[in-house]
């Protein structure tokens, strides 16, 4: 080639891959997420506290269930986050597999434990509610069972991502597993519904007017939004920590590879 081209190269067409590359730059991600994190955390905490206080103290009691219904203000948003978290995990895994973004790999690895904790909260609060309402801690009802399976899918993902000596080796198997789980979840949901149904059908998202009173719906939605921000803040914080961990590992590996040379190189 003779000399630099006369005109600067045309900017790449704004494909999805390019757009992702912009945000995959770890430096840019650390700056953006560092600025975003306090706001997300503050909004999440404020909304969750408001929604929970509203739901647990000020919302009217249910005419049938009494005060027990208030556990739903934690249970239902946790269930939303349990399912939404798996969607996030699957999307991050897909991006990591297709475009090979290390950042997406780290995000998938760090989303899974947060989702698992929300799934556990959903299962535990559901069980606490079931004792006074259904007379038993646990029934093998379709919805409970599918959430339990979801929990096991999270646990399997966490176990697989931690099972390799080189954490970076774990990214692709874990991503493939997350996608297998995402394909299987509707099948599991459908077959479990076929198998047994005792849980009430969905009452917020059904067509037409919601099946619950607006006095209960409002605090529920506020708490749901709050849980969403808390989830995002935790996932972001964990991803930032994951990036720093990887950097620290790379630095330590570089230092170990370096022959013990000048003292100035060691004492940093």
């Amino acid at each position: 080639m003779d000399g630099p081209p006369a005109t600067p190269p045309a900017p790449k067409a704004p494909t999805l891959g390019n757009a992702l590359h912009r945000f995959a730059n770890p430096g840019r991600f650390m700056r953006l997420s560092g600025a975003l994190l306090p706001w997300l955390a503050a909004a999440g905490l404020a909304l969750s506290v408001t929604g929970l206080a509203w739901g647990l103290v000020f919302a009217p009691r249910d005419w049938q269930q009494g005060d027990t219904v208030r556990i739903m203000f934690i249970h239902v948003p946790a269930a939303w986050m349990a399912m939404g978290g798996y969607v996030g995990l699957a999307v991050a895994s897909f991006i990591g597999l297709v475009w090979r973004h290390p950042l997406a790999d780290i995000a998938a690895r760090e989303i899974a434990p947060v989702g698992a904790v929300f799934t556990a909260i959903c299962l535990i609060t559901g069980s606490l509610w079931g004792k006074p309402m259904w007379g038993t801690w646990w029934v093998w009802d379709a919805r409970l069972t599918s959430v339990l399976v979801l929990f096991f899918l999270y646990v399997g993902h966490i176990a697989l991502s931690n099972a390799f000596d080189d954490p970076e080796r774990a990214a692709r198997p874990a991503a493939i597993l997350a996608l297998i789980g995402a394909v299987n979840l509707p099948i599991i949901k459908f077959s479990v519904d076929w198998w047994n149904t005792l849980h009430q059908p969905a009452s917020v998202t059904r067509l037409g007017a919601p099946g619950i009173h607006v006095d209960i719906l409002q605090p529920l939605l506020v708490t749901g939004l709050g849980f969403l921000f808390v989830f995002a803040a935790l996932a972001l914080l964990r991803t930032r920590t994951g990036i720093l961990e990887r950097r620290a590992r790379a630095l330590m590996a570089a230092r170990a590879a370096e022959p013990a040379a000048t003292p100035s190189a060691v004492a940093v």
Partner: protein
Amino acid sequence: MSPFWGMLRRDLALARRNAGDTLAAVAFFLLAVGLFPFGVGPAPELLARIAAGVVWVAALLAALLPLDRLLGADFEDGTLDQAMLSGLDPAMVAGAKAAAHWLSTGVPLLLASPVAAIMLNLPLDALPVLVAALALGSLVLSLLGTAGAALTLGARRGGVLLPLLVLPLAIPALIFGVAAVDAALGGLAVRPHLAMLAAMAAAALPLCPLAAGAALKAATE
């Protein structure tokens, strides 16, 4: 001979020469089924009611036993690297492995399942349905299991990890397999349940080798 058939024949020859592995899986299956009467009591009507579920669960667990070595041995001695270099698509390598697992473990378990069902006093008219459902279900499990085995290649504690990954995914097959036998016992239509199992097998047949192939590629890179 195409590489696919070559791999399959090699794995089947290995399974034939190490017949002890297959026998161990079958023995485990019968033993696990045989433990249930001690656990729940020998009442014939109770055993007949739980027979289908017990046979299914024991078969699922027994089929998991050889999965760990299915790819692990080839991974360690380099055979898998050779297979990946053979020009055969990784998904087909995984498909050959799944077929080998089904023929060397699934089919023997299938042959042993009538014995297990009779041990638990399952009415004889439900026996053909149980075997038909188990034939489809074990195919699904072989395919899912191969994907699980490919994912855990090179992992620490792969043997413990594998059931954790595979068993939750096998729940739909279990549900419809046992429902088919229950329908036969209740005099209801069996075909919808078997059709659902066949649909699961038909979906798993292309998808699981695809996922397993991607995992094999990641593991041997």
